[in-house]
């Protein structure tokens, strides 16, 4: 069997090394992309760990409240007559100015740790400082020194002075201890943290260690606004939230592998067609059907294994490149986190191996079975034959229509567990439908344009068209592969383009102020650094300023899911804003916000929590729970957590922290922007504030948007690259298979240039048909992406928009690449010796 395999399968593969290599390369690329996204998304989102979980150690419960907890609760709980250990934490972020590195700033009660008699070790992630084994640095007592325990990659040593930018101020601190750790963080004493953050007597979280189930007793001691949850519940919620994002990415990564599968199918089909008479002879000589089937499946497995051998290390390398981009998207849209290390585990490698082998064997199954079914007499009598697909065309068209109808119904189904599973199914069915319709599409199009091609491209165009039509069996699979890749590019391009256009329009309606102010430290979807209170008044006092809106945001949890609670001045929005309310009357909404506990909420919030206009939601604010009425729903694309927006003065009643997260400054008409900017800089000279004119903020927003989708485009391009490589390989097969025909043309007077032109015409036709089919399929897929998958995954509506220029550019590149893919096969065709070929025949 092995000898047979070596002679009948390996030898032909060795005889065509370039084609073999191209097929292996396409499988390897598919596998590497799947593995890279698996590893990178796992590092950035899958094994999610919030930055703020740094040095949290183990605990049983955690207590939180919107706007923070009063420090007195720490003392109250510590004094309860129950066996619990309570650890207070302040959690924020700071920028280490020397390295511009953003790191978690954690405030801990270091004195309490110092008093713990069992303490032996310094705080680090594996030995949390809250455990009894902590020895504080000698000069860490609050009020004695502004000391900090630092864990960064930089070469700091105890005694060094560092500058930490926290919110809008810089603080000089002395390093008291340096910890070796994979993750960077800074630990300060609780009191110092409160001082640095201007949040006296407030803490963010209390971690509880309890030996028994003491939940009821602890709950009794809590104010109603505080939440007691099992420790890690929020991390788990964040992880769940990221799961959807991850699965979208993983599914995108499989496109390249699916395109690779088409090419495997094509390769094995070509093998079967070419060796038809050979198989007939072997069957006549006694080879069983099972052996034939096994041999062709083994050929596919060989491609799979070679692809895996290259794809796995390549995937590991690509993961390094992808993790930064995925991490940035997670930060922008979801939650502050630090990507973990990329780990090529046995499990992830096994997954890649299984995915690669499954896809290649599944793709090869149909042609291998067909090979096994070949009747010896028929195969030998008729010799090599290119199958006539016309008989199956009608059946395939009917199946295609069935798949399209099924896709339509799948697109109407609701999500399952906040995941658009039926949306994915609809997309897959559409791809299947298009693949089934491809032979008919190619047949009718080549037939109907034959004369046009002849008049445009001469006899070479006519011959190319006839050849494509005559070898539908193999060319249609190839074209289906390229159509799929192009369609994915087109649909994702339209989806991202629509999203981008919608976001630009949304930014126009949101960013109505002339200048925006925010602390000069990075923010993210759950991180809202604040400005010093009173800053708004200082700016408002400037003569060129007419109005200042103060916006404050808090990351909160609502019904177990992360949400952003915000407040702004409803008056300003009413006068100057161009807020587009999807539901609710703007005038009445703003009036209600001014006078009652009412809020407008964002579209993702409504979709995620299934709430509606007029509903009342209970929000734990400060120490109590407050009923808030929803009076409007607005479009928002800044993050997918969802917003609840109250009027500033109403929220201040319950969360009396006046520090705004950012300011929107409106100038008098005709004011010179640069002068206004300078005046604000002077007025706020003692603070570290970013002063962003409207235009720069818009630019920044679009930049973040484009960066977010960069990885999506990269994945699409890999799929297209795989398909184009496939075109080169398949054209090569066509050339080798049509040696006789090409040689005969030379006998009949065809010049070498005509042979080259003929092959390039075929490549061009394949490219053109694929681009055409890709546009049609991509257009339909984009509807599923925009109105089903996107809506169900993220909860926001986007307006359909076709980025014509970008798509035209991309499609031209694909067409050109396909044409270029014909160059090498054309060279091979020209190198044929017509005399030898005809003599052989």
């Amino acid at each position, binding site marked *: 069997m092995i000898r047979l395999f070596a002679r009948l399968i390996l030898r032909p593969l060795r005889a065509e090394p370039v084609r073999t290599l191209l097929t292996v390369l396409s499988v390897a690329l598919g596998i590497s992309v799947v593995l890279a996204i698996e590893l990178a998304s796992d590092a950035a989102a899958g094994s999610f760990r919030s930055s703020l979980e740094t040095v949290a150690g183990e605990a049983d419960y955690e207590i939180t409240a919107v706007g923070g907890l009063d420090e007195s609760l720490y003392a109250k709980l510590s004094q309860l007559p129950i066996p619990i250990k309570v650890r207070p934490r302040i959690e924020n972020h700071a920028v280490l100015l020397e390295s511009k590195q953003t790191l978690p700033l954690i405030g801990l009660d270091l004195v309490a740790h110092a008093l713990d008699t069992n303490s032996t070790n310094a705080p680090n992630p594996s030995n949390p400082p809250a455990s009894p084994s902590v020895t504080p640095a000698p000069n860490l007592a609050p009020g004695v020194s502004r000391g900090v325990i630092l864990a960064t990659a930089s070469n700091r040593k105890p005694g060094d002075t560092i500058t930490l930018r926290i919110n809008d101020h810089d603080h000089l601190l002395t390093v008291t201890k340096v910890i070796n750790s994979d993750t960077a963080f800074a630990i300060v004493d609780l009191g110092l943290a409160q001082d640095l953050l201007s949040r006296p007597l407030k803490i963010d979280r209390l971690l509880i260690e309890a030996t028994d189930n003491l939940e009821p007793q602890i709950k009794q001691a809590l104010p109603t606004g505080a939440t007691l949850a099992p420790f890690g519940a929020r991390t788990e919620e964040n992880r769940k939230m990221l799961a959807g994002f991850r699965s979208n990415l993983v599914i995108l990564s499989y496109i390249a592998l699916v395109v690779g599968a088409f090419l495997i199918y094509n390769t094995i089909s070509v093998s079967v067609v070419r060796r038809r008479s050979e198989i007939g002879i072997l069957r006549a000589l006694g080879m069983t059907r099972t052996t034939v089937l096994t041999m062709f499946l083994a050929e596919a497995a060989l491609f799979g294994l070679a692809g895996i051998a290259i794809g796995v290390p390549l995937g590991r390398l690509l993961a390094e490149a992808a993790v930064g981009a995925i991490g940035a998207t997670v930060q922008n849209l979801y939650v502050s986190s630090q990507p973990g290390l990329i780990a090529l585990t046995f499990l992830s490698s096994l997954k890649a191996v299984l995915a690669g082998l499954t896809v290649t064997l599944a793709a090869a199954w149909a042609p291998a079975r067909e090979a096994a079914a070949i009747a010896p007499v028929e195969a030998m009598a008729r010799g090599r034959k290119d199958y006539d697909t016309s008989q199956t065309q009608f059946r395939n068209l009917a199946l295609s229509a069935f798949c399209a109808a099924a896709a339509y119904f799948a697109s109407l189904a609701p999500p399952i567990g906040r995941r658009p599973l039926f949306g994915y199914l609809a997309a897959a069915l559409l791809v299947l439908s298009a693949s089934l319709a491809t032979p008919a599409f190619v047949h009718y199009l080549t037939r109907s344009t034959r004369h046009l091609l002849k008049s445009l491209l001469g006899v070479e165009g006519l011959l190319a068209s006839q050849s494509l039509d005559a070898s539908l069996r193999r060319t249609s699979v190839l074209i289906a592969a390229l159509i799929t890749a192009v369609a994915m590019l087109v649909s994702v391009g339209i989806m991202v383009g629509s999203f981008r256009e919608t976001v630009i329009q949304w930014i126009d309606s949101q960013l109505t102020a002339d200048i925006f102010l925010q602390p000069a430290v990075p923010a993210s979807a759950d991180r809202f650094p604040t400005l010093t209170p009173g800053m708004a008044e200082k700016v408002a006092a400037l003569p060129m300023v007419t109005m200042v809106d103060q916006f404050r945001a808090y990351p909160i949890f609502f019904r177990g899911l992360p949400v952003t609670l915000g407040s702004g001045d409803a008056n300003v929005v009413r006068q100057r804003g161009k807020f587009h309310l999807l539901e609710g009357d703007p005038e009445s909404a703003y009036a209600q916000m001014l006078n009652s506990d009412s809020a407008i909420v964002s579209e993702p919030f409504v979709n995620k929590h299934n709430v509606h206009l007029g509903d009342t939601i209970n929000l734990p604010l400060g120490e109590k729970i407050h009923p808030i009425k929803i009076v409007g729903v607005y479009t928002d694309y800044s993050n997918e957590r969802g917003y609840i927006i109250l009027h500033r003065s109403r929220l201040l009643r319950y969360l009396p922290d006046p520090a705004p997260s950012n300011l929107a400054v409106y100038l008098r008409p005709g004011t010179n922007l640069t002068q206004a900017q300078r005046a604000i800089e002077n007025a706020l000279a003692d603070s570290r504030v970013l002063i962003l004119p409207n235009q720069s903020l818009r630019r920044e927003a679009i930049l973040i948007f484009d960066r977010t989708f960069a990885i999506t485009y990269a994945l699409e391009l890999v799929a297209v690259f795989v398909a184009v490589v496939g075109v080169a390989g398949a054209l090569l097969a066509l050339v080798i298979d049509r040696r006789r025909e090409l040689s005969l043309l030379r006998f009949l007077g065809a010049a070498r240039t005509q042979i080259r032109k003929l092959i390039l015409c075929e490549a061009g036709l394949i490219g053109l048909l694929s681009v055409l089919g890709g546009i049609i399929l991509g257009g339909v897929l984009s509807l599923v992406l925009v109105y089903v998958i996107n809506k169900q995954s993220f909860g926001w509506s986007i307006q359909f928009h076709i980025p014509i220029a970008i798509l035209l550019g991309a499609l031209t590149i694909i067409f050109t690449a396909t044409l270029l893919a014909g160059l090498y096969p054309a060279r091979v065709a020209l190198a044929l010796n017509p*005399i030898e070929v005809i003599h052989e025949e």
Partner: protein
Amino acid sequence: MPPNPEIPVLQFAGVHRKYQNVSALDGVSLSVPPGQLLAIVGRSGCGKSTLLNLAGAMDFPSSGTVHIDGQSTTGLDDRALTRLRRDKIGFIFQSFQLLPNLTAAENVELPLLLAGQPQARERALDRLDRVELGGLGHRYPHQLSGGQMQRVAIARALVHRPRLLLADEPIGNLDSTTGATILTLLRKIVSEEQATIVMATHSPESTAFADRIIEMRDGRIINPS
């Protein structure tokens, strides 16, 4: 310009052709005047096919000269050789060599299309009429019998009115009755159209239709009469 009856359509002068160290043709000299049906006989490997390849401007002699309709093939580049084939030579093969994905008419018009000549379809249909296949132009090769396929091949070889028709075992794949019909047709073409045919053959029936017969052995002509 009308063909000059004084100039041989095909002339070999001391032609040698070597492939590595094997001598396929060994000093062949030959002159074929217009309107002659020449049969070349000999065993397999005697050099018949090599002679046809050189006569068809598909190959170059290692030494000596080959003139086709007065034009030497020596020193011609690929483009010029292609033009020579296109204008002056037609090929007929033992296994017909029709393109399976083209209809009979499309196969016949192919040389005209490759040469960029006008009215290709009309001329192709006319040629098919002459080989008595009028009305079968729309059929694909697999829908034709062996004899019909060879007639299509002959029509294709003649469609551009070549001066020289090269036939390599034209009836090798046909039964004797069909073979005879094809040979009659070739004879008729020579008489009616003043075409020159050089035919490599094994069969004694074929030689009966020839004006002249030469025999080859080991790359040489052994009866140069």
